[in-house]
């Protein structure tokens, strides 16, 4: 985790292929390479071995029993990016079987200023799937949706590590969110799912300025049953243009 995280800032400059030392010990803090790591009301971010892929370490995030609990890392290196592609690995098995009202936010790509009253361009959350499983729900800001929100969700997540990749394209007339779930290979395949918004920059507020990953905004039942349970993250990568893949 510690090495892959560094890909973030480099990838924003269009560089790929950074490789750190897998033998290095896990750092005690995710900062740097992340800009900051807010942890509030019992929320905890920690680094532990091994990584979820070939990296040396991963990040654990867990929440306290509070609606205001927060366990996140923040990257402020994006600069009003009109196109923002990102990928990370997540293993949510630590948060045991999801009830039908369990939900917790895991990612947010934010604009520098609100549009239609909303600052997040896209938010991602773990939400209930079938039979106690989990899905990822994407909520994109859009003028045409209820309360300026347009949503889609993945199929049930397989147990274990899942790889999710997103491509946000903010155009003058049409903006699009494409996502891929557990795709293999480095060639860009058709998206697993899409949110298309007509309205352009007015709906998406000009581009991604901040990325936040971790846990927050728990539902009441998540607080009651999953406080202290760690969700694992790893290998965050963000770029302007190129497909990331695996």
């Amino acid at each position: 985790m510690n090495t892959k995280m560094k890909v973030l800032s480099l990838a924003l400059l269009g560089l790929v292929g950074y490789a750190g030392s897998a033998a290095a010990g896990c750092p005690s803090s995710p900062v740097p390479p992340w800009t900051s790591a807010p942890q509030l009301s019992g929320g905890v971010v920690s680094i532990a071995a091994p990584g979820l892929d070939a990296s040396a370490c991963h990040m654990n995030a867990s929440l306290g029993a509070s609606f205001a609990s927060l366990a996140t890392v923040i990257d402020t290196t994006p600069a009003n990016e009109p196109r923002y592609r990102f990928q990370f690995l997540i293993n949510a098995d630590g948060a045991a079987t999801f009830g039908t009202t369990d939900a917790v936010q895991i990612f947010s790509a934010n604009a520098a200023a609100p549009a239609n009253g909303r600052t997040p361009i896209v938010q991602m959350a773990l939400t209930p799937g079938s039979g106690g499983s989990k899905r990822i729900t994407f909520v994109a800001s859009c003028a045409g949706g209820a309360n300026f929100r347009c949503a889609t969700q993945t199929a049930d997540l397989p147990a274990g590590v899942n790889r999710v990749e997103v491509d946000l394209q903010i155009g003058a007339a049409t903006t699009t969110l494409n996502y891929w779930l557990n795709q293999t290979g480095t060639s860009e395949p058709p998206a697993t799912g899409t949110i298309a918004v007509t309205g352009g920059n007015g709906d998406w507020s000009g581009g991604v300025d901040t990325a936040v990953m971790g846990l927050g905004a728990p539902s009441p039942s998540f607080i009651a049953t999953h406080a202290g349970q760690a969700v694992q993250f790893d290998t965050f990568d963000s770029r302007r243009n190129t497909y990331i893949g695996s």
Partner: protein
Amino acid sequence: MKMTCLALLVAGVLGSGAAFAQTCGAPGSWNPDATGAPPVVTDLCAGSDSVALYCSFLDSAGKNDGIYQINLVAGYTATTISVSGAAAGFNPVVYLYTAACATGDGCVQSGDSGTPIPLAGSAAGAYFLAVTAAASDATGACGTTTMTTNGTFPVSLQNFSVE
């Protein structure tokens, strides 16, 4: 004479925190005495939406906010800030933060009806204190909240003269 006016002014401030607009444009003030009195009551349903996102992550769009500006002065005795007023579909939360008001950023503490904000160890300085509905509550969720504390912040006298 000015002492009398000052006393009246201070009394007015102490007793009228809830009468302010409690927005980023006009934050309310809260100057509790040594016992923490008075509490601050905020009717969020009658308020307005000042902040779209707290702590870079917690969506507050479409949910009204009660915004207060407090000054923790060295020697403050308050150790917690609690909030109450939860109702069906409404779970009040409070955020203590330092960045520009409308950004809701620079969070240093948070709390809800079961988890008071701890103040012990917080650096002296000016903070925004926001009360709103939990990020997981539905858009438009609101209610009447009461914030309490257990000591003084205390007031920092900015100007004083006797003629």
